[in-house]
């Protein structure tokens, strides 16, 4: 560490807050443009999907354990189970899968 730790922390805190707060506070009116509206509608699905795979198979003890958790999670979410049940079940399956495979 060569800089001052509190300046480092201030930099990450301020920078990351500005990134989050500027669009939310500057864009006050509904966006009329059809392309931008459609784009923003699709953004969360694509972002979360990209972050889930293959990260889920890289995060677990073995790739197979992560793949099992992924398949089980998709199945349960498809059946309409909520956040908590799906999240917990994925953990348990990933843990057991890691022990077995």
């Amino acid at each position: 560490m060569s800089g001052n730790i509190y300046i480092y922390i201030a930099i990450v805190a301020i920078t990351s807050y500005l990134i989050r707060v500027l669009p939310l506070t500057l864009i006050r009116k509904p966006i009329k443009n059809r392309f931008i509206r459609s784009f923003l509608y699709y953004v969360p699905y694509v972002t979360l999907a990209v972050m889930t795979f293959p990260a889920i198979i890289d995060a677990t003890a073995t790739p197979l354990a992560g793949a099992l958790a992924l398949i089980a999670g998709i199945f349960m979410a498809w059946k309409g189970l909520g956040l908590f049940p799906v999240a917990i079940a994925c953990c348990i399956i990933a843990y057991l899968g890691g022990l077995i495979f």
Partner: protein
Amino acid sequence: MDTKAFREGFRDGIPIGLGYLAVSFSLGISAKQAGLTPLQGFVTSFLENASAGEYIAFTLIGAGATYIELCLMTIIANARYLLMSCAMSQRFSPDTPMIHRFLVAFDLTDELFGIAIGRPGYLNPYYSYGAFLVALPGWSIGTAAGVIAGNLLPGDIVKALSVSLFGMFLAIIIPPARKDKVVLVLIIISFAASYLCSRLPVIRDISSGTRTIILTLIIAGIAAWRFPPQTEITPENADAQKEQGADV
């Protein structure tokens, strides 16, 4: 004060807080390697609220990076929040006071964005505050604990706990995919593209945060250009879907 929404947010925030506790615990270990005290780890996590961003920050701090480098990498690692913030700006009711935009932005993370945007209708800031109440302590305390304890929990358990975050992502993106075939196809394409980009030479060396931004811009951009949603997604007709018993 909308206590019903606050309680719902608190409830939905519990799995997030638990997942954060596990993930930030391992983040605390890298904070310790960078030379941070538990309190400094706690403060950084409370103020930044970003896994990839903090991981990069701790690595840079440990390496004695310049302030400019740290600032630029923080922007890159967190750029996806810029997109999420734009998306959220469209879901606020015109009647919601400005202060709520400042407060909700404070803990705009992948997961908290996901659960807030997954609800039908206009955003209810109190729902987000309820979730923050569990998520913020989970994240910051987990980091401090990671600094203190180093490797307390067995690695297998830490790894299994980190999967809870991905389970939550699935619970957010899969139900809409059942109703909207374009979303379903986009998810499959996103999985495939993300896998390829993480394995192909050269591209795999780009940080995962940057890959996420690039893939999001390309895939969501093409989808918006070629397949604009058939029915305009507005808070009004999302409410109508809810009344019909659809699980949004």
